[in-house]
Every structure is written in structure tokens, then in C-alpha cells.
């Protein structure tokens, strides 16, 4: 089982925001934010997306604001 786990989490390792040098993650830009949520609307973990911890914190906040403004769903059926 441990083997499958290792394979599962190892395909992307670079932070998108660091590479493109984006410091301010805009909550209004729902196209970018939607790359970091699942089909069901949950926030993807850093393990999947490779986002660095600094940007993950900002991303989380941006997604939560976008949800309140109805740009992104809380849950999607």
C-alpha cells in the first residue's frame, strides 16, 4: 500500500505563483482559482498542486472570499 501512495503524490512539484512571480492572489480571478479546487469544490492540498506554503495561505483566503461572492461554489453536485 505504501508503494501506491508514493506514486500517487509525485507528479507536480513547482509552485505556480512562484514561477510566474505573482505576489498578490486576486480573489476576483476565478479562472486561476478554479485550477486549485476539485470538481466538487474542495480546496486542493499542497501535495497535489505543489504550491508553496506562503502562496497556499494566500490562495486559501482568496478562494474563501470568492466563494462568499458566489464566484466559486462551496459544494458542487
Amino acid at each position, binding site marked *: 500500500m505504501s508503494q501506491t501512495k508514493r506514486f500517487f503524490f509525485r507528479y507536480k512539484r513547482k509552485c505556480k505563483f512562484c514561477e510566474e512571480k505573482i505576489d498578490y492572489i486576486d*480573489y476576483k480571478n476565478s479562472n486561476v482559482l478554479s485550477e486549485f479546487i476539485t470538481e466538487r469544490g474542495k480546496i486542493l492540498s499542497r501535495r497535489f498542486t505543489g504550491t508553496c506554503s506562503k502562496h497556499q495561505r494566500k490562495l486559501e483566503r482568496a478562494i474563501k472570499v470568492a466563494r462568499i461572492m458566489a464566484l466559486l461554489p462551496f459544494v458542487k453536485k
Partner: protein
Amino acid sequence: MRVYELFYLIEGDLPEERKKEVLQEVKNLLLEKSQILEEKEFGKRRLAYPIKKKIEGIYYLTYFSSPPDFIKRISTKLNQMEGVLRHHIERIDLIYKKYDMPIPGMVKKEEENVSN
């Protein structure tokens, strides 16, 4: 005076006249104590989930400079306003300065001064 960004959502199926009234109401509220720097329409969109049984909404974005104690009043007034579904106010002057981004509205004024 601090610079803020107001992002608000109004109902999408309002008749043209009522829509103008709502926009004017928001503008009048802001003009009580603050200065409007720039106004933008962010566009009509399908909402991610229905709010008050409405599926569509129009987003507007306004940049304004205001004293800090006025923000709470804006927020409560917008909550009471009919037609406005959601709003979000964020202070942007420090963030924009930190990351060297031009504050919308402020740039234009500076350019005008130079040309004058």
C-alpha cells in the same frame, strides 16, 4: 485617507431603471464621506450557487478612498440595501504598495498633473 476596493453583486434580472437606481444609491452612499477613484463593471455572470433564488448577477468594482471609521457604515448600509446581493470591502493601499502595483484611479490623477 485609506484606499479601499468595493466589490459588489447586484441582481441580474433587475429592469434597467431599477438597476440604475441601485447603482446611484451605492454611489451616493460612498460619496457621503469618501472619494471615488474609479468605477468598473466586472460583468454579468452566472452565480456559482443561487442567492435569494437568483441565478444571475452583475458584479461591479469601485475603488475609493475613505476614512477608516466610515467603512462599517458602508457595510451595514449595503447589507440593508435591496438589490445588492453580496459585497466585499478590502483595504488595498498597503498591499498594492507592497507589491508595486499601481492603484487604479490614482495613476490617472498623477498623469493628469504631469500633463498640466
